[in-house]
């Protein structure tokens, strides 16, 4: 444990240094790549946190974008209404320390509300399994979106501008690192083995004195917490959020990352998140070269056609995901030994 914590601090330090010295250069000279980079970081946070629910705990959530929306709107409203007070107290928007602290506070507010939302979904879902839970979380995501659409305070369908573009490389990749650390540390702890047990066999877990409900709710709350942070970072990066940015297809994006990476394989999920963020950009670039006939451009630009095929083909040929082979193989051999 101590080594991994050291690793985390080292990683955070590297993030901080890169952010301090290279942020301005990348964000001004390489704006397009900067955008992709931040998006990668946000997607990694989302995928890693969803992996705790879908991968390690074996529940199927289709509403991760809903939690992201809660975080984004909560932190945006916080910044819009309370930043004038906090920022001036801390030294004004010109002070980099002040903006970072303001981001942290609003982020934590968004994450806390998202975690509460996670609790609210987790509690009624405790009796549901598999398909039902998937529908329920899907419904929850839609309800959140509809609620925002009908709340004038949050801009309704017009969208909401976010005051202060605070998101930077340090926070995005720092949180991605922390999320990875938290999920791994949680799952690899004695206590956290319960998540895997609930996934592998709920009845057996119950027989061993593990409370599946409690683990499921915890997975939801932790997952939602980080999704809320991701939403906050997203809002403070794009400076403008709309309910449509958090629709069902956004949730599907994240689910595809988790499945492609291999459910229950954090390294795989991170790779898949990076891959699936870059891939649509590459395809878009490819679509506009001379190589591709104009008739097929739309096919390449529509990422959801690609994603749906990925889902179907993966499930038919390699259900453990691209990078999830190791864990799956190990469990297969151990099961073979038991028999």
């Amino acid at each position, binding site marked *: 444990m101590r080594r991994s914590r050291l690793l985390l601090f080292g990683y955070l330090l590297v993030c901080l240094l890169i952010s301090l010295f290279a942020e301005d250069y990348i964000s001004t000279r390489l704006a397009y790549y900067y955008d992709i980079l931040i998006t990668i970081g946000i997607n990694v946070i989302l995928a890693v946190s969803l992996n705790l629910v879908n991968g390690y705990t074996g529940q*199927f959530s289709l509403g991760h974008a809903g939690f992201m929306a809660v975080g984004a709107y909560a932190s945006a409203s916080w910044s819009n209404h309370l930043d004038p007070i906090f920022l001036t107290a801390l030294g004004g928007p010109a002070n980099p320390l002040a903006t970072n602290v303001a981001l942290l506070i609003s982020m934590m507010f968004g994450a806390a509300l998202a975690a509460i939302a996670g609790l609210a979904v987790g509690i009624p879902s405790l009796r549901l399994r598999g398909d*039902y839970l998937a529908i329920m979380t899907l419904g929850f995501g*839609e309800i959140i979106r509809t609620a925002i659409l009908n709340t004038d305070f949050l801009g309704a369908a017009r969208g909401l501008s976010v005051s202060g573009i605070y998101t930077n490389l340090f926070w995005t990749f720092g949180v991605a690192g922390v999320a990875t650390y938290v999920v791994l540390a949680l799952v690899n702890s004695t206590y956290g083995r319960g998540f895997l047990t609930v996934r592998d066999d709920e009845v057996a877990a119950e027989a061993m004195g593990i409370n599946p409900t409690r683990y499921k709710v915890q997975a939801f709350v932790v997952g939602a917490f980080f999704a809320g942070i991701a939403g906050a970072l997203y809002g403070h990066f794009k400076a403008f959020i709309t309910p449509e940015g958090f629709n069902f297809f956004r949730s599907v994006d994240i689910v595809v990352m988790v499945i492609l990476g291999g459910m229950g394989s954090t390294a795989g999920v991170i790779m898949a998140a990076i891959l699936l963020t870059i891939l649509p950009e590459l395809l878009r670039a490819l679509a506009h070269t001379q190589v591709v006939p104009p008739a097929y451009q739309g096919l390449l630009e529509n990422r959801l056609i690609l994603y749906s095929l990925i889902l179907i083909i993966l*499930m*038919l040929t390699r*259900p453990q995901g691209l990078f999830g082979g190791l864990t799956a193989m190990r469990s297969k051999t151990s099961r073979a030994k038991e028999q």
Partner: protein
Amino acid sequence: MEQVTLFVQQLLNGLSLGSIYALIALGYTMVYGVLRFINFAHGDIYMLGAFFGFFAAPYVAKLFPFAQYDSFTPQNFLGIISGAGLVMLISMTICAVIGVLIEKIAYRPLRNRPRLNVLITAIGVSLFLQNITQYFCGAQPRAFPQLIPVQAIEGLGDLTVLTTQAAIILSTIVLLILLRFIVMKTKLGMAMRALSLNPEACSLMGVNIDTVISFTFVLGSALAAAAGVLVSLDSPSITPLMGNLPGIKAFVAAVLGGIGNISGAALGGLIIGELETLVVGYLRPELRDAIAFAVLIVILLFKPTGLLGRVEREKV
């Protein structure tokens, strides 16, 4: 008195909406009955049904010139009905074939895998159908051709029942009776029921399980396609994403009636349709899409087997 008329009117509107949900819900429940999984792509078969009806209508119009009439007359009645029926039949046939193909390609190889894998595949199929339709047909809503003249039926006093609503309700009744006949009186129907009771014993008795499952998909997809055409009579704007919400609501209807139970699905569909109409009419229109989820939560918390479902114990 006016209040009563209004209420009855709402109930009638709910009946036509509920008929649509019932038709879709039947597909969910039948597939669940034989395969024990939720066919997420079912709502998109409904969407495809509307689109195939859309493409078939111009050809059928050459045979039966239904498009030129503004109102029903005793002379043109039969022509209009057979024209609209033919459009529906073509769409149902094509969707039945597509349903069988989906089962063969995407679901059959996964039959003995964990249920989560099949669920993910079904989501993949659903997304694929939506987006491939969007790619070929565009995301803009299309105007569905008018198959039957839209007019209020006379002689009902203060109540307004449109011909399209009547068509939806009557077609649903006919289809439900037909389905009941197939499931209860034919050999394949009996095999379906046997399969949902006990797959192993069923195959030991010499029933070809693959055929029965394909047949189930034929029935379910055809009913969804019929729903797609019927709903387009009433609200003639079709989009590639139109299957999403009705699909989910019909699923809730199937759960409400007790998933796996055919009469339950029809009942659940009607209840959801009525509830939705009443909520929109008497509470708040924004809650229209939330009500189905609320029903799902309540039913799963208090009576997970649904209204007509039987209790299934989990065996270790």
